[in-house]
């Protein structure tokens, strides 16, 4: 069997992740999801499909939601990345994290990071969404455990709290 020296070219990537400046090397062809998980040990974002169909890998790139499984790591160069690990404010959970806990919006919890990031992006943009708007905004995130009921209700409750806080 061969040895594994002298392979693979690696690209240097520099960006901010959850507010911190980070630098890492990525193999050609590595997804941003794999880089976050394997290089930076941020395993909050999950791979449910690797093809852009489940939303478990959802992150914010310059404030917009993206499937990190569909981005190459070098595409993050110069970007501001936010993952589920970065949405709490210091020791304070984001209101969505708190309402997800109180509203039992997670069962197995593997979809939760993606939902939290997608829901945050929705509420950042639209502080008072209707139930239908919430359902369509989250339609790119699959949850197989909850039937979505408690997720939608928890987003509604977080929206109420955030509107109250910003008054």
């Amino acid at each position, binding site marked *: 069997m061969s040895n594994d020296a002298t392979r693979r070219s690696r690209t240097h990537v520099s960006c901010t992740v959850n507010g911190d400046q980070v630098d890492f090397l990525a193999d050609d062809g590595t997804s941003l999801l794999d880089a976050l998980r394997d290089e930076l040990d941020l395993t909050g974002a999950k791979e*449910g499909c690797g093809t852009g169909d489940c939303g478990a890998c959802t992150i914010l790139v310059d404030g917009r939601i993206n499937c990190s499984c569909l981005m190459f790591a070098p595409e993050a160069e110069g970007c501001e990345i936010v993952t589920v690990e970065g949405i709490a404010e210091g020791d304070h959970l984001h209101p969505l*994290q708190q309402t997800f806990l109180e509203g*039992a919006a997670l069962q*197995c*919890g593997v979809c939760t990071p993606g939902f939290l990031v997608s829901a945050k992006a929705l509420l950042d943009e639209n502080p008072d969404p209707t139930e239908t708007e919430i359902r369509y905004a*989250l339609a790119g995130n699959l949850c197989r455990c909850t*039937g*979505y*009921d408690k997720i939608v*209700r928890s987003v509604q409750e977080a929206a109420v709290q955030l509107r109250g806080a910003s008054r």
Partner: protein
Amino acid sequence: MTVTENRPDYKWVGTRPIRHDGYDKVVGKARFAADRNSPGQLHGAFLRSPHGHARILSVDTSAAEAMSGVKAVVTGADFPDLPIGHPERDTAVNLMARDVAMYVGHVVAAVAASTRAEAEAAAAAIEVEYELLPVVLSLDESIADGAPLANADNRTAFSGSDDPSNLATVTPLERGDVDAAFEAADVVVEREFDTAWVHQGYIEPHACVVDVGADGKAEVWASSQGHFRVRSQAAAVLGWDTARIKVIPAEIGGGFGGKTTIYLEPVAARLSEKSGRPVKIVMTRDEVLRATGPAPASKSRIRIAATNDGELTAIDGWIGYAVGCTGDMAGFVGAMSVASYKFPNLKMEFVGALTNTPRSAAYRAPSAPQAAFAIESVIDEIAQALDTDPIELRLKNAVVEGDLTSMGGPHPRIGFVECLEAIRDSEHYQSPVPDGAARGIGTGFWFNIGEQSSATVNLNEDGTATVITGSPDIGGSRASMALMAAEELGLDVHRITPVVADTESVGFTDVTEGSRATFATGMAVVNACRDLVGELKARAATIRGVEVDAVAWVDGAAVVDGHDPLPLADITAKAKSTGGPLTVTASLNAGGAGPSFAVHCCDVSVDEETGRVEVLRYTTAQDAGTAIHPSYVEGQMQGGTAQGIGWALNEEYVYADDGTMLNASFLDYRVPVASDLPMIETIIVEVPNPAHPYGVRGVGETGIVPPMGTIANAVSRASGVRLTSLPMSPPKVLAALDDR
């Protein structure tokens, strides 16, 4: 909303605290199977059969072994052959083909290399010579006279025959005089049905990291519905003592029955053994769909007889399940699931038949949804023929305590009638049906099981507690264990830490199936806590200098007449001087799992132009016995319902004639998304299970049973067409509308 029968006044049971593992799961800290890397680890990848059925003539791994980064290659020759009849033979053969590949996607070889890409490239470079064999792709082909064998090693279970057969099981049931009942009937409805293969669709693909040391001991990190089963299956497949294997339970990202068996761990173990390095294997979604447990496709014929006043006098019929490439109990379990109505006369046959498709796996109330779809549809048609209310018809025929199950024994105390009444009296059912929509009713049943569990409860020096069990937390069970312990000990639920321990740190615990975790493992926790309270009273007696009989345990403190109550923390602080640490282990083989019934009600509209069925409103009532944490009981009801709606309307495996799955992605195998569904309203019915200290019935499975019939019944009332084929996808609905 909860409907309750005589519930005692509990302080903790029935409350809704934040789950103990919740914080880690909302901040991204919880570690699921793929979230761990080991220093020096290699990555595994598979070579899978491109053929639906083929003899493996030769496997040449030499080119692969010479490739960059490759450290180990394994094939079927690296695993012991378990004899026909060995309980894990099918598991072993399914995770690594020996002489024959039995479906497209069956693993033929595996590689460990420094990177996943290298492992995949090397796997693709393995050369295999195949001789093609006939492919059996459907139930009809499998049971046809003279059909080729899908798996020459299969024997029909319980038949006593040693002849190869495509039949996995044949289960006849009979009582009363069916012929006479049909002759005397006022109304007879007969229909044929079919349902497609569907997948559990857990969002977390199977994954593991296995490290086999130079001493031959293996540490396995994996997610599963039961790490003790991972251990026993891996040991059997490898031919090892179980004591060589330690399985650490990762958080599990959904299972629904599909993670009650293994696919990866023994392969990773052999690769690790050969390479001397930890090996990580993570399935792709494509692999999950092509090569892990779908639920069986089915065909059925159901005929039911009724009198004009709505007594269902007889049922006869046949239900067949296409179980995939190995022996399987789907047909037998299906026979157990027909137990909701009295039917004084019954004659049914249930068959499981093998096909050259992936080995099927349990999926939430396995085999019951297919049967309930057929039977609930025919019962609804009888209600239509008699022009009677579908709930009243069911109430008239519903089983109660003492009525026979399909297998002949009497039902224990059950809550079917209570669930029917809860839906009948619900705001939903009492409200007018919206314009352009129609309403359907359906029901479901699951018998649940008990099995073996262990629990250890440790009281800490400061009066807090640790509750250690071996049941993975799939949807809030840590919180349920802590709630029952809180109730028993009189401790605040947040002063209790519930832990899911590895196979070396807690007593044997069976896999989580049959909705048994809160029931059986919960019972072990309660038993341990009760023993602990006995011990606390003894310590308090020592401290107070009284007989133990003089001590009562009230609200977390030892109470002795004439003294101030002695709180738990004061006793634990004196543990050293009163006999040492306070710790108790309990284990049991739980009997008396209470069956759980559910009744569903939905409003749908049918788009006459596109054939799309839209679910407008959905309400489910289910008997939980006692809901320990009602939010997670509701979650089970809602999640099961959503999966059932997917099964009813969208989901199906599509195969090419050679057995290749054509829709192996979440884009093409479309599970319901948030915008497909309405809120799912829940009514928890509580008819306590007398066999559990808090009256718990398993709630995990029943929710998936009623939706297909419920929706078909609503569609029939909305459009005048009776759909008998799942999924009720737009093309099928349109065709049915055109035929009207």
